């Protein structure tokens, strides 16, 4: 059996390779002839060497940069969930593929994590042996003096009016003064300096790990939640109160501190003139809060860049908008809905979109969908629009619906009308306004719905603020890590590790000093100046004290 296999292999190898046939005969028929069989241990060692090589580090760094790119181009669900769902709606074929690839949450995706974890392993594998070498080098004596100093990249030869021993002593003193670790030898001096460079480099690489630990800690135990609160209303810090909440994977709801707060007012200023009219200049909001139930109330003012910090939890003012207060009555004259309704702005003039739902209306439920325009404007081309972000001429422009709001089917988006079982009202106005009825309301105004279905009154305009409550533990660790990293970098990039040697010989009755140096930094350069300086110092150095006493 085995002999047939062998002949087959021989045939396949062909007549040109008689030795190959011989080799094939002794090895099992596993093409191609692999590198000398590696034992698992050797294979592991080989893989480890590959992983911790500088080349791999470079490739992984590049991969990391490349892998971050989609995260900036494709909407990310932990940053802007709304954008993600819009994007998905717009790209029905791509969306499922992207979803599978984790492209909507690049920075938690397995492949992104794989890259940085590999990088971290590589980094550790790189640091540990280097630490060992560094430790050894730190205690090592300066390197042996090369036989031929003039072969080194930079060297000088000069004469000194002193005897050789004195010349050596002088050179030794100069090197030490220039902060070399110097050693006096038989006929030469050797010096080395710049140990801090490697130390800085190691510190930098260790700091990368520290930063990552701090960052990961925050990602795992931190949280970030957003809540829209109408001015005058309150908020207490529990999960159910949040409109959106993104916890770290090890976060537990019990970690939420029992803060509660009430939004007292909100104030925004806008530029009223000039080309940038409408651009906001200030936002601020006054709130009252208590740290824990029963604690005395305290006051605070929130504004952009000025959060409230409570027990490490930050409360930010991150957005604002309008909440028109409306009263909806049904066909029987009963109040079916009364209160502020949050409208979400979708451009810088605060033209805002929202829906009003009156599920209690009888005989049929009522719904409204439309725009809130803080400063009303109208052109035939554009239709109704907002001219300015402040509520100067507030108008509600709504399309009313009747039928079934579909709210029995469980939780529903408050910013959307489910129109499957809703019908618009027919318009009674001029035909050019279209077939469906559309209402335009100013504050204080009431409009009757067609067919006696009810009425809606625009009572007044309230404002809402969006508060973000977040906690990112571990940020101190990350910050310290980065600062140490920069310190390390400075050492790594700017300390010049150098070696210098001098050999003193006696030629024709004169003392000749040969001075040579080596620069071991990536930057190189400046070595010539250093040697010039050394030469100058040695030449001008006062004779050794021993001689002075003579």
């Amino acid at each position, binding site marked *: 059996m085995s002999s047939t296999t062998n002949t087959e292999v021989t045939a396949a190898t062909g007549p040109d390779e008689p030795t190959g046939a011989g080799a094939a005969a002794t090895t099992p028929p596993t093409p191609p002839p692999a590198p000398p069989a590696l034992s698992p241990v050797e294979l592991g060692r080989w893989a480890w060497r590959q992983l911790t090589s*500088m*080349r791999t*580090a*470079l490739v992984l*760094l*590049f991969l990391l*940069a490349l892998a*971050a*790119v989609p*995260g*900036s*181009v494709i909407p*990310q669900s932990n*940053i802007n969930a709304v*954008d993600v769902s819009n994007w998905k709606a717009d790209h029905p074929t791509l969306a499922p593929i992207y979803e599978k690839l984790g492209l909507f949450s690049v*920075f938690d995706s397995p492949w992104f994590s794989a890259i940085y974890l590999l990088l971290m392993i590589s980094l550790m594998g790189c640091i540990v042996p280097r630490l060992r070498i560094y430790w050894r080098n730190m205690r090592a004596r300066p390197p042996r003096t090369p036989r031929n100093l003039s072969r080194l*990249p*930079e060297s000088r030869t000069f004469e000194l009016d002193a005897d050789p021993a004195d010349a050596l002593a002088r050179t030794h003193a100069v090197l030490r003064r220039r902060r070399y670790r110097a050693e006096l030898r038989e006929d030469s001096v050797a010096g080395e300096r710049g140990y801090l460079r490697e130390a800085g480099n190691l510190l930098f690489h260790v700091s990368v790990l520290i*930063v990552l630990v701090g*960052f990961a800690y925050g990602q795992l135990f*931190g949280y*970030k939640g957003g809540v829209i609160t109408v001015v005058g209303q309150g908020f207490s810090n529990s999960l159910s109160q949040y409109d959106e909440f993104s916890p770290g994977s090890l976060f537990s709801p019990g970690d939420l501190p029992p803060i509660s707060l009430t939004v007292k007012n909100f104030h925004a200023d806008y*530029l009223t003139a*000039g*080309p*940038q009219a409408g*651009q*906001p*200049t200030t*936002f601020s909001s006054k709130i009252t809060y208590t740290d824990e139930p029963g604690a005395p109330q305290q006051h605070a003012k929130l504004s*952009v*860049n000025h959060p409230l910090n409570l027990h490490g939890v*930050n409360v*930010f003012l*991150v957005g604002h908008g309008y909440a028109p207060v409306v009263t909806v009555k049904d066909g029987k004259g009963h109040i079916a809905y009364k209160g502020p309704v949050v409208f979400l702005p979708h451009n*810088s003039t605060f033209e805002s979109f929202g829906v009003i739902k009156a599920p209690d209306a009888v005989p049929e439920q009522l719904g409204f969908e439309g725009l809130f325009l803080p400063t009303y404007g109208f052109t035939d081309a554009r239709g109704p629009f907002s001219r300015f972000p402040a509520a100067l001429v507030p108008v509600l422009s709504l399309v009313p619906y009747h039928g079934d709001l579909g709210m029995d089917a469980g939780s529903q988006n408050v910013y959307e009308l489910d129109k499957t079982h809703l019908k618009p009202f027919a318009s009674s106005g001029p035909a050019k306004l279209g077939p469906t009825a559309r209402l335009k309301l100013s504050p204080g105004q009431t409009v009757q719905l067609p067919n006696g279905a009810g009425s809606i009154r625009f009572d007044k305009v309230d404002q809402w603020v969006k508060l*973000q*409550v*977040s906690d*990112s533990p571990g*940020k101190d660790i*990350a*910050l310290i890590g*980065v*600062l140490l*990293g*920069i310190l390390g*970098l*400075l050492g790594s*990039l*700017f300390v010049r590790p150098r070696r210098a040697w001098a050999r003193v010989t006696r030629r024709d009755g004169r003392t000749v000093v040969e001075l040579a140096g080596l620069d071991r930094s*990536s*930057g*190189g*350069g*400046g*070595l*010539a*100046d250093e040697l*010039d300086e050394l030469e100058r110092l040695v030449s001008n150095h006062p004779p050794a004290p021993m001689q002075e006493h003579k």
Partner: protein
Amino acid sequence: MSAADFASFSNHAIMFASIVYVLAFVAHITEYAMGRRVPAAAPSFTSADTAAAPTSLLRREARQTRPASAASSESTANTAATAVLPREDAAAGSGAAALAVGSDGPEAVSDTRIEQFGRIGVALTVLGCLLHAAALVTRGLGSDPIRVPWGNMYEFTMAGTLGVSVMYLLLLRRYRLRWMGLLVTAFLVVVLMVDVLVLYEPAGPLVPALHSYWLMIHVTAAIIASGAFAVGAIASVLFLLKQRAIDRGTLSPRGYLARLPELRVLDRVAYRVHAFGFPIWTFAALVAGPIWAEYAWGSYWNWDPKEVWAFITWVVYAAYLHARATAGWKGKLAATIALIGFATLLFNFVGINYFFGGDSMHSYAGK
């Protein structure tokens, strides 16, 4: 002066700054054009000595005049002399041109002229830079209320180009960058022109998110680092071009590339300038930025497109430093990585602001 006065002074100052940069550019062009009449150095000065002391384009040229006019056998002796030259240069400040005058003949005279034009170029660049800085400061004073002058693309471009100009001048002496003058001034002129003609916006107040101490630190550091990276990118481009010309044997002795410092010097200058910029960038992108973000948005790292790209830039430059430190990867590969780094930087500034303007929380992108 009222805010409006400051604002219009700023407009005038930036105009004058551009004009002065144009003049500086013309001076450097003249410097180069006059130099063309003298063949540039043959690649004879490859000794470690010359490499260790980067000399400016013109100094080297001055030295080469003698072989050009005298017997070619002298050129070796001349090269040997270079070991001494840089030291004399250092001692005599920038009086290198004087050395060339030693040999008489028409070329020697033109060397002094060339040197003069080079110096005029630098002097004009300094003047342009002062006007440029004045324009930026008065722009801030010209807004009501007074604020940091980087609220929109116009101002940011003005600040970024100032960063390039300042970095070039700051590193000029230390790394002897005068050979770069032609390209730096050309860059400044073109970008400022685009800025004034295309991006101009009248002075106005800042959006609230930009009112922050840390933002000021963050942007200042980012601008300084970007300036250094721009200077580094110029050195890397020139390195690659020269390397290619040498590889292909198309390096014309009278051409621009031949007048640049030796490859090794270009590579090293690029490294040093990048090494200078990298810690500053680290501080800007990974310390000041996150601290500001913590105050402005409640979490220090949000993976906002601008942050992502700042991070990408950081990683690419870290890769550059690695490549530069790896034997065999110096030179071409490292220079290419440096240019990729600069491309990510530019993309962050231009691309993100224009393509993702609305999405990015960094709202100075002109919408």
